[in-house]
């Protein structure tokens, strides 16, 4: 592959991923509202378009045309750049995620991964973790007590759970022996029995819990807990800047779902008669649905319970899991 081809194909991939995933993030809000509504015996959005399908569009128009308000005492440049960090890191994290198996189109073999970094997992988790700067800076710059509290909670929550995420996937990585997501995927190419979730169930549960915390989803939805801190770091935000936080959040959810399905659930290997591309879409959709499902079913927890859970339960479990995996691998 020549340099020109490489540059062009990468740019095309970036544009496709950006377009599809920002659209999916918008569509995710629609799905969330529908699923939550059905679980609570409501109908959800119904008026805009057939079954409310165009609600996303209407919300988008509303967000784009709203006045961009920057509060008086806020630190203007930081306040304005914080949501961009949130959305950008979410999309950058997707760069090292292999989304589909290789396929051919117009005689060209396409690798549906923007950049096959050989430390893919580290890159994705690192970039997602740096996304914590978005709520942190937003909350600190917006000259608002609720914003500040939200930012403080962001730091404790995301930093603590980052540790659990890292430790929980340590055990699968020890088994695979590579940090590249493609290698991890290929390790499980032998059907359902090869999925890492069977050999590492504890790691899978820990990873999911930490994923909920990192994407700021319901049982750990403390950064913008309406009942306590109005809207947390996003209190002073409105219009598209507010929307960017949520595009970031939903993209992070999808990234998390991709990571969980690639690392634990067999990735994009063929699943019986289901081709790999469809298999991973099904897995990611199920995990995304699971995010919404828990939101309808489970209550929030308190910040102190959050910290208790992280440091006194999940962290020891993760460490024990790593030790046991190491022992088993050694023997």
């Amino acid at each position: 592959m020549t340099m020109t081809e490489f540059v062009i194909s990468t740019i095309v991939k970036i544009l496709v991923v950006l377009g599809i995933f920002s659209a999916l993030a918008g569509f995710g809000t629609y799905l969330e509202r529908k699923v939550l509504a059905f679980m609570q015996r409501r109908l959800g959005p119904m008026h805009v378009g057939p079954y409310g399908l165009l609600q996303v569009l209407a919300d988008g128009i509303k967000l784009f045309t709203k006045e961009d308000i920057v509060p008086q005492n806020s630190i203007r440049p930081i306040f304005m750049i914080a949501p961009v960090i949130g959305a950008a890191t979410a999309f950058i994290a997707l760069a090292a995620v292999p989304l589909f198996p290789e396929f051919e189109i117009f005689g060209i073999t396409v690798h549906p991964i923007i950049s096959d970094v050989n430390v893919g997992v580290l890159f994705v988790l690192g970039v997602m973790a740096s996304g914590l700067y978005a709520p942190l800076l937003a909350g600190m710059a917006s000259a608002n007590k609720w914003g500040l509290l939200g930012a403080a909670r962001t730091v404790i929550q995301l930093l603590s759970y980052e540790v659990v995420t890292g430790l929980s996937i340590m055990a699968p990585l020890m088994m695979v022996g590579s940090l590249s997501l493609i290698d991890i995927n290929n390790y499980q190419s032998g059907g359902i029995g090869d999925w890492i979730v069977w050999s590492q169930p504890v790691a899978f549960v820990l990873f999911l819990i930490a994923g909920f915390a990192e994407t700021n989803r319901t049982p750990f939805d403390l950064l913008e807990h309406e009942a306590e801190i109005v809207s947390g770091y996003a209190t002073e935000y409105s219009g598209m800047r507010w929307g960017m936080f949520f595009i970031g959040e939903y993209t992070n959810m999808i990234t998390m779902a991709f990571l969980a399905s690639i690392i634990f659930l067999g990735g994009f290997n063929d699943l019986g008669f289901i081709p790999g591309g469809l298999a991973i879409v099904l897995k990611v959709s199920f995990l995304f649905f699971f995010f919404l499902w828990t939101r309808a079913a489970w209550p929030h927890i308190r910040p102190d319970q959050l910290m208790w859970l992280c440091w006194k339960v999940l962290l020891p479990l993760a460490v024990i899991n790593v030790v046991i995996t190491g022992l088993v691998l050694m023997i």
Partner: protein
Amino acid sequence: MSLEQFKDRNVTQNYKFIPVDKPPVAPLDKFKQALKRTFKGELFVGLWVVFREMVRFNIHTVQYPKEKLPISPRYRAVHKLYRLLESGYERCIGCGLCEKICIANCIRMDTRYDENQRKEVTEYTINLGRCIFCGYCAEVCPELAIVHGGRYENASEQRAHFVLRDDILTPLDFLKEGKQEEFPGFGAVSPNADERIKKTPLAY
């Protein structure tokens, strides 16, 4: 059901007391409690409940402007002025009781004697901005001329639309089609009114 039943204050309440354990203090007990709660699977019960409701798809939403819930005949919304069924004259005899009893002072009427020396209502307005829909006017009306209807959607662009006589008076063509239904609700005589009539005690 007789009245005595309601007057009996010595009712035994069937309260069921749910025993609540004291929160554990000792570290080992705390640990046991956490362990029990973790593996009891209560979280999955929650997941199952909401999933069941989603699959059942037993939706309770009323899509309001398109669907409306039925309201009781006793509902007290915007008033109606009725006409006599046979002649089509207004039932209102201009007695002014409604104006007098209105505690929000929102009814105004003007009357004059017509050529037959009968009271005729020339102006009748109800200021719905002030009306508290207490229903006294309908209750006090001796002719069942003013009643409460079921129209509860009151949005308008001008305050003057709340509310003139022409808006609430039964239209003549409407009456001729027999669409003025006798009012069963607030202020109307009860169905068994005849049985309940007693002679005025004149003994004293």
